[in-house]
Protein backbone atom coordinates (compact mmCIF):
# COMPACT_ATOMS: atom_id res chain seq x y z
CA UNK A 1 0.00 0.00 0.00
CA UNK A 2 1.44 3.35 -1.00
CA UNK A 3 1.92 6.39 1.21
CA UNK A 4 0.20 8.67 -1.32
CA UNK A 5 -3.45 9.69 -1.48
CA UNK A 6 -5.26 7.44 -3.93
CA UNK A 7 -6.86 10.30 -5.90
CA UNK A 8 -3.72 12.43 -6.06
CA UNK A 9 -2.97 11.77 -9.72
CA UNK A 10 -6.49 12.16 -11.03
CA UNK A 11 -6.04 15.79 -12.09
CA UNK A 12 -6.47 16.35 -15.78
CA UNK A 13 -7.03 20.07 -16.08
CA UNK A 14 -4.69 23.04 -15.93
CA UNK A 15 -5.96 26.60 -15.77
CA UNK A 16 -3.83 29.64 -16.51
CA UNK A 17 -4.93 33.26 -16.10
CA UNK A 18 -3.14 36.04 -17.91
CA UNK A 19 -3.48 39.69 -18.87
CA UNK A 20 -1.69 42.09 -21.17
CA UNK A 21 -0.18 45.25 -19.74
CA UNK A 22 0.11 48.71 -21.33
CA UNK A 23 2.95 50.77 -19.91
CA UNK A 24 3.08 54.54 -19.49
CA UNK A 25 6.75 55.60 -19.52
CA UNK A 26 8.72 58.75 -18.89
CA UNK A 27 11.21 60.19 -21.41
CA UNK A 28 13.87 57.73 -20.18
CA UNK A 29 11.71 54.69 -20.66
CA UNK A 30 11.07 54.12 -16.95
CA UNK A 31 7.60 52.75 -16.34
CA UNK A 32 5.42 55.24 -14.47
CA UNK A 33 2.13 53.41 -14.66
CA UNK A 34 0.72 50.21 -16.04
CA UNK A 35 -2.78 49.32 -17.08
CA UNK A 36 -3.87 45.77 -17.65
CA UNK A 37 -6.31 44.67 -20.29
CA UNK A 38 -7.26 41.63 -22.33
CA UNK A 39 -7.52 39.26 -19.38
CA UNK A 40 -8.07 35.65 -20.33
CA UNK A 41 -8.49 32.29 -18.71
CA UNK A 42 -6.94 29.42 -20.61
CA UNK A 43 -7.85 25.88 -19.68
CA UNK A 44 -6.03 22.79 -20.89
CA UNK A 45 -7.99 19.63 -20.38
CA UNK A 46 -7.38 15.98 -21.18
CA UNK A 47 -10.42 14.38 -22.80
CA UNK A 48 -11.45 10.97 -24.09
CA UNK A 49 -13.90 9.80 -26.68
CA UNK A 50 -14.44 6.58 -28.57
CA UNK A 51 -12.08 5.87 -31.43
CA UNK A 52 -14.47 6.84 -34.25
CA UNK A 53 -15.86 10.00 -32.69
CA UNK A 54 -12.86 12.31 -32.57
CA UNK A 55 -13.56 15.48 -34.56
CA UNK A 56 -11.65 18.73 -34.44
CA UNK A 57 -13.26 21.41 -32.28
CA UNK A 58 -10.69 24.12 -32.98
CA UNK A 59 -12.61 25.52 -35.94
CA UNK A 60 -13.13 28.97 -37.44
CA UNK A 61 -16.00 31.29 -36.52
CA UNK A 62 -16.38 30.32 -32.87
CA UNK A 63 -17.71 33.16 -30.73
CA UNK A 64 -16.36 33.57 -27.22
CA UNK A 65 -16.82 36.15 -24.50
CA UNK A 66 -16.81 36.31 -20.71
CA UNK A 67 -19.41 33.56 -20.46
CA UNK A 68 -18.39 31.24 -23.27
CA UNK A 69 -14.98 29.86 -24.17
CA UNK A 70 -13.57 29.16 -27.60
CA UNK A 71 -11.49 26.09 -28.38
CA UNK A 72 -8.01 27.19 -29.38
CA UNK A 73 -6.51 23.77 -30.04
CA UNK A 74 -7.66 20.20 -30.02
CA UNK A 75 -4.79 17.75 -30.27
CA UNK A 76 -5.10 14.01 -30.68
CA UNK A 77 -2.57 12.43 -28.30
CA UNK A 78 -3.32 8.76 -28.68
CA UNK A 79 -5.76 6.67 -30.66
CA UNK A 80 -6.41 2.95 -30.65
CA UNK A 81 -9.34 0.62 -31.13
CA UNK A 82 -10.74 1.38 -27.68
CA UNK A 83 -10.53 5.16 -27.47
CA UNK A 84 -9.10 8.45 -28.65
CA UNK A 85 -7.26 10.61 -26.13
CA UNK A 86 -6.94 14.32 -26.81
CA UNK A 87 -5.91 17.60 -25.29
CA UNK A 88 -8.34 20.51 -25.54
CA UNK A 89 -7.30 24.10 -24.90
CA UNK A 90 -10.14 26.58 -24.27
CA UNK A 91 -9.82 30.34 -23.93
CA UNK A 92 -12.29 32.60 -22.23
CA UNK A 93 -12.30 36.37 -21.71
CA UNK A 94 -12.21 37.59 -18.12
CA UNK A 95 -14.65 40.17 -16.85
CA UNK A 96 -13.25 43.67 -16.30
CA UNK A 97 -12.76 44.87 -12.76
Amino acid at each position, binding site marked *: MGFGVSTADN*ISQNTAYSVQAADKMDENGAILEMTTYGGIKETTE*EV*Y*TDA*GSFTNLAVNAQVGNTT*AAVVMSHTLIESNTDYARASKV*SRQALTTG
Partner: protein
Amino acid sequence: MTTTSEVCPLVPASYIKNKAYDGDGEIWSIAGGGISVFGLRVKAPSLGVFSLLESYESPFIAHPEDCTLLDVWRVLYINDRREKCVQEVMDWAYPSHGSEFVHEDTTTWREFDHNAFAFGAEHYDENTPMEEIAQDVEKLYKWFLLAFEGFEMIPGGGSGAAWWFGAETIGSMAAALSARPCEILWDLPLCFVGHAVASHARMNGNNNVKRPKDVADMKEKFEEAKDRERNGVMHPWQVENPEAWPLTEQQIKYKPTIQKEWDRLLKERKNVKA
Protein backbone atom coordinates in the same frame (compact mmCIF):
# COMPACT_ATOMS: atom_id res chain seq x y z
CA MET B 1 -31.75 2.61 -28.47
CA THR B 2 -28.03 2.54 -29.23
CA THR B 3 -26.73 2.94 -32.74
CA THR B 4 -23.14 2.30 -33.70
CA SER B 5 -22.92 5.47 -35.81
CA GLU B 6 -23.72 7.62 -32.80
CA VAL B 7 -21.07 10.18 -31.91
CA CYS B 8 -19.61 9.86 -28.44
CA PRO B 9 -19.15 13.24 -26.77
CA LEU B 10 -15.85 14.20 -25.17
CA VAL B 11 -15.49 12.96 -21.61
CA PRO B 12 -13.03 14.84 -19.39
CA ALA B 13 -10.28 12.57 -18.09
CA SER B 14 -11.07 13.44 -14.47
CA TYR B 15 -14.40 11.60 -14.83
CA ILE B 16 -12.67 8.33 -15.78
CA LYS B 17 -10.96 6.09 -13.25
CA ASN B 18 -7.25 5.44 -13.58
CA LYS B 19 -6.27 1.87 -14.35
CA ALA B 20 -5.43 0.03 -11.14
CA TYR B 21 -1.80 -1.01 -10.87
CA ASP B 22 0.26 -3.02 -8.46
CA GLY B 23 2.56 -0.38 -6.97
CA ASP B 24 3.99 -2.79 -4.41
CA GLY B 25 4.74 -5.34 -7.11
CA GLU B 26 6.56 -2.68 -9.15
CA ILE B 27 8.77 -1.86 -6.16
CA TRP B 28 9.57 -5.53 -5.53
CA SER B 29 10.24 -6.11 -9.20
CA ILE B 30 12.63 -3.16 -9.46
CA ALA B 31 14.29 -3.76 -6.09
CA GLY B 32 15.30 -7.30 -7.02
CA GLY B 33 12.59 -9.36 -5.34
CA GLY B 34 11.28 -12.57 -6.84
CA ILE B 35 7.96 -14.39 -6.75
CA SER B 36 7.72 -18.00 -5.72
CA VAL B 37 6.21 -20.32 -8.36
CA PHE B 38 6.77 -24.00 -9.14
CA GLY B 39 9.14 -24.19 -6.18
CA LEU B 40 11.37 -21.54 -7.75
CA ARG B 41 12.24 -17.98 -6.87
CA VAL B 42 11.63 -16.05 -10.09
CA LYS B 43 13.24 -12.63 -10.36
CA ALA B 44 11.79 -9.88 -12.52
CA PRO B 45 12.40 -10.40 -16.25
CA SER B 46 14.78 -8.14 -18.13
CA LEU B 47 14.44 -6.92 -21.71
CA GLY B 48 16.77 -9.69 -22.98
CA VAL B 49 14.44 -12.36 -21.58
CA PHE B 50 11.59 -10.97 -23.69
CA SER B 51 13.93 -10.63 -26.70
CA LEU B 52 14.82 -14.33 -26.51
CA LEU B 53 11.16 -15.30 -26.04
CA GLU B 54 10.26 -13.20 -29.07
CA SER B 55 13.07 -14.75 -31.16
CA TYR B 56 11.25 -18.08 -31.14
CA GLU B 57 7.71 -16.68 -30.70
CA SER B 58 7.26 -18.27 -27.30
CA PRO B 59 3.69 -19.52 -26.90
CA PHE B 60 3.85 -18.17 -23.33
CA ILE B 61 3.63 -14.66 -24.86
CA ALA B 62 2.36 -15.19 -28.41
CA HIS B 63 -0.24 -17.96 -27.95
CA PRO B 64 -1.00 -18.50 -24.24
CA GLU B 65 -3.82 -20.88 -25.18
CA ASP B 66 -1.25 -23.30 -26.71
CA CYS B 67 1.34 -22.91 -23.96
CA THR B 68 2.53 -26.24 -22.52
CA LEU B 69 4.29 -26.86 -19.24
CA LEU B 70 7.54 -27.34 -21.17
CA ASP B 71 7.03 -23.86 -22.67
CA VAL B 72 6.75 -22.52 -19.13
CA TRP B 73 10.00 -24.30 -18.18
CA ARG B 74 11.68 -22.71 -21.20
CA VAL B 75 10.54 -19.28 -20.00
CA LEU B 76 11.73 -19.91 -16.45
CA TYR B 77 15.01 -21.37 -17.69
CA ILE B 78 15.69 -18.34 -19.90
CA ASN B 79 14.75 -15.94 -17.11
CA ASP B 80 17.14 -17.76 -14.77
CA ARG B 81 20.12 -18.24 -17.14
CA ARG B 82 19.75 -15.10 -19.27
CA GLU B 83 22.90 -14.36 -21.32
CA LYS B 84 24.30 -17.82 -20.49
CA CYS B 85 21.60 -19.55 -22.58
CA VAL B 86 21.59 -17.30 -25.66
CA GLN B 87 23.56 -19.73 -27.83
CA GLU B 88 21.47 -22.77 -27.01
CA VAL B 89 18.23 -20.84 -27.65
CA MET B 90 19.66 -19.68 -30.99
CA ASP B 91 20.77 -23.22 -31.94
CA TRP B 92 17.31 -24.43 -31.00
CA ALA B 93 15.44 -21.75 -32.93
CA TYR B 94 17.71 -22.04 -36.03
CA PRO B 95 18.88 -25.66 -36.10
CA SER B 96 21.49 -26.55 -38.71
CA HIS B 97 20.39 -30.17 -38.76
CA GLY B 98 18.15 -32.70 -37.04
CA SER B 99 14.46 -33.44 -37.11
CA GLU B 100 11.59 -31.17 -36.15
CA PHE B 101 10.68 -30.93 -32.50
CA VAL B 102 8.01 -33.39 -31.36
CA HIS B 103 7.06 -33.05 -27.75
CA GLU B 104 6.37 -36.75 -27.25
CA ASP B 105 9.61 -37.90 -28.91
CA THR B 106 12.59 -36.90 -26.77
CA THR B 107 15.01 -37.97 -29.53
CA THR B 108 13.91 -34.81 -31.38
CA TRP B 109 14.72 -32.61 -28.38
CA ARG B 110 17.73 -30.36 -28.47
CA GLU B 111 19.98 -29.05 -25.75
CA PHE B 112 17.60 -26.22 -24.88
CA ASP B 113 14.64 -28.62 -24.47
CA HIS B 114 16.63 -30.99 -22.26
CA ASN B 115 18.04 -28.21 -20.13
CA ALA B 116 14.68 -26.47 -19.73
CA PHE B 117 13.00 -29.77 -18.85
CA ALA B 118 15.70 -30.70 -16.35
CA PHE B 119 15.49 -27.24 -14.85
CA GLY B 120 11.74 -27.64 -14.35
CA ALA B 121 11.96 -31.21 -13.08
CA GLU B 122 14.57 -30.16 -10.56
CA HIS B 123 12.12 -27.84 -8.83
CA TYR B 124 8.70 -29.10 -9.72
CA ASP B 125 6.81 -31.81 -7.91
CA GLU B 126 5.06 -33.87 -10.59
CA ASN B 127 2.19 -34.59 -8.20
CA THR B 128 1.29 -30.92 -8.07
CA PRO B 129 -2.47 -30.58 -8.67
CA MET B 130 -3.58 -28.87 -11.88
CA GLU B 131 -5.27 -26.09 -9.89
CA GLU B 132 -1.98 -25.17 -8.26
CA ILE B 133 -0.18 -25.22 -11.63
CA ALA B 134 -2.83 -22.88 -13.07
CA GLN B 135 -2.43 -20.52 -10.10
CA ASP B 136 1.35 -20.47 -10.51
CA VAL B 137 1.07 -19.78 -14.24
CA GLU B 138 -1.32 -16.90 -13.56
CA LYS B 139 1.03 -15.52 -10.92
CA LEU B 140 3.90 -15.76 -13.41
CA TYR B 141 1.90 -13.86 -16.08
CA LYS B 142 1.10 -11.07 -13.64
CA TRP B 143 4.77 -10.87 -12.64
CA PHE B 144 5.89 -10.64 -16.27
CA LEU B 145 3.17 -8.11 -17.17
CA LEU B 146 4.38 -5.76 -14.41
CA ALA B 147 7.32 -5.09 -16.71
CA PHE B 148 5.06 -3.03 -18.99
CA GLU B 149 3.45 -0.66 -16.50
CA GLY B 150 5.99 2.09 -17.19
CA PHE B 151 5.73 1.75 -20.97
CA GLU B 152 1.93 1.97 -20.72
CA MET B 153 2.34 5.52 -19.43
CA ILE B 154 3.80 6.67 -22.75
CA PRO B 155 1.12 7.63 -25.31
CA GLY B 156 1.40 5.54 -28.43
CA GLY B 157 3.27 2.83 -26.52
CA GLY B 158 5.83 0.87 -28.47
CA SER B 159 8.27 1.82 -31.19
CA GLY B 160 6.03 0.42 -33.92
CA ALA B 161 8.80 -1.98 -34.95
CA ALA B 162 7.88 -5.50 -36.11
CA TRP B 163 10.02 -6.95 -33.31
CA TRP B 164 8.77 -5.48 -30.06
CA PHE B 165 11.93 -6.49 -28.19
CA GLY B 166 14.30 -6.33 -31.15
CA ALA B 167 17.41 -4.32 -31.93
CA GLU B 168 15.52 -1.02 -32.40
CA THR B 169 13.97 -1.29 -28.96
CA ILE B 170 17.21 -2.39 -27.31
CA GLY B 171 19.10 0.46 -28.98
CA SER B 172 16.56 3.14 -28.11
CA MET B 173 16.37 2.04 -24.47
CA ALA B 174 20.14 1.87 -24.12
CA ALA B 175 20.35 5.38 -25.60
CA ALA B 176 17.57 6.75 -23.36
CA LEU B 177 19.24 5.40 -20.24
CA SER B 178 22.84 5.89 -21.36
CA ALA B 179 23.36 2.26 -20.43
CA ARG B 180 25.46 -0.49 -21.97
CA PRO B 181 23.55 -3.11 -24.00
CA CYS B 182 24.36 -5.88 -21.50
CA GLU B 183 22.88 -3.84 -18.65
CA ILE B 184 19.69 -3.13 -20.60
CA LEU B 185 19.45 -6.72 -21.83
CA TRP B 186 20.23 -8.71 -18.73
CA ASP B 187 20.80 -6.70 -15.56
CA LEU B 188 18.00 -4.16 -15.28
CA PRO B 189 14.43 -5.32 -14.61
CA LEU B 190 12.28 -4.30 -17.59
CA CYS B 191 9.82 -2.73 -15.15
CA PHE B 192 12.54 -0.25 -14.16
CA VAL B 193 13.57 0.36 -17.77
CA GLY B 194 9.95 1.14 -18.70
CA HIS B 195 9.58 3.71 -15.95
CA ALA B 196 12.97 5.22 -16.75
CA VAL B 197 12.05 5.54 -20.44
CA ALA B 198 8.69 7.12 -19.46
CA SER B 199 10.51 9.57 -17.22
CA HIS B 200 12.97 10.32 -20.03
CA ALA B 201 10.05 11.05 -22.38
CA ARG B 202 8.57 13.41 -19.78
CA MET B 203 11.89 15.20 -19.34
CA ASN B 204 12.01 15.64 -23.11
CA GLY B 205 8.75 17.57 -23.00
CA ASN B 206 6.10 14.88 -23.40
CA ASN B 207 3.57 16.15 -20.88
CA ASN B 208 1.16 13.37 -21.69
CA VAL B 209 3.14 10.65 -19.95
CA LYS B 210 0.95 9.39 -17.12
CA ARG B 211 -0.75 6.29 -15.77
CA PRO B 212 -3.34 5.05 -18.26
CA LYS B 213 -7.07 5.12 -17.71
CA ASP B 214 -9.21 2.10 -16.95
CA VAL B 215 -10.58 1.10 -20.37
CA ALA B 216 -13.63 -0.74 -18.93
CA ASP B 217 -14.61 2.31 -16.86
CA MET B 218 -13.98 4.53 -19.86
CA LYS B 219 -16.35 2.51 -22.06
CA GLU B 220 -18.97 2.67 -19.33
CA LYS B 221 -18.57 6.46 -19.16
CA PHE B 222 -18.88 6.70 -22.97
CA GLU B 223 -22.18 4.79 -22.86
CA GLU B 224 -23.51 6.93 -20.00
CA ALA B 225 -22.55 10.08 -21.92
CA LYS B 226 -24.30 8.84 -25.08
CA ASP B 227 -27.39 8.04 -23.02
CA ARG B 228 -27.45 11.54 -21.59
CA GLU B 229 -27.17 13.02 -25.08
CA ARG B 230 -30.10 10.94 -26.31
CA ASN B 231 -32.21 11.95 -23.36
CA GLY B 232 -31.37 15.62 -23.55
CA VAL B 233 -29.67 15.66 -20.19
CA MET B 234 -26.63 17.81 -19.50
CA HIS B 235 -23.35 16.12 -18.61
CA PRO B 236 -21.98 16.70 -15.11
CA TRP B 237 -18.99 18.58 -16.59
CA GLN B 238 -21.41 20.92 -18.40
CA VAL B 239 -23.28 21.62 -15.17
CA GLU B 240 -20.00 22.18 -13.37
CA ASN B 241 -18.42 24.40 -16.00
CA PRO B 242 -20.91 25.45 -18.72
CA GLU B 243 -18.56 28.14 -20.10
CA ALA B 244 -16.05 25.53 -21.21
CA TRP B 245 -18.57 22.86 -22.22
CA PRO B 246 -21.21 24.13 -24.66
CA LEU B 247 -24.07 21.91 -25.70
CA THR B 248 -23.38 19.41 -28.45
CA GLU B 249 -25.33 19.23 -31.70
CA GLN B 250 -26.80 15.91 -30.59
CA GLN B 251 -28.12 17.28 -27.30
CA ILE B 252 -29.87 20.11 -29.14
CA LYS B 253 -31.16 17.73 -31.81
CA TYR B 254 -32.68 15.32 -29.30
CA LYS B 255 -34.04 18.03 -26.99
CA PRO B 256 -34.16 21.57 -28.48
CA THR B 257 -35.38 23.05 -25.18
CA ILE B 258 -32.08 22.11 -23.54
CA GLN B 259 -30.63 25.35 -24.95
CA LYS B 260 -32.82 27.36 -22.53
CA GLU B 261 -31.64 25.25 -19.60
CA TRP B 262 -28.03 25.82 -20.55
CA ASP B 263 -28.54 29.57 -21.01
CA ARG B 264 -30.14 29.74 -17.58
CA LEU B 265 -27.25 27.83 -16.06
CA LEU B 266 -24.78 30.17 -17.68
CA LYS B 267 -26.70 33.21 -16.40
CA GLU B 268 -26.77 31.80 -12.88
CA ARG B 269 -23.03 31.23 -13.00
CA LYS B 270 -22.47 34.77 -14.20
CA ASN B 271 -24.60 36.16 -11.35
CA VAL B 272 -22.71 34.09 -8.80
CA LYS B 273 -19.41 35.41 -10.14
CA ALA B 274 -20.64 39.02 -10.15
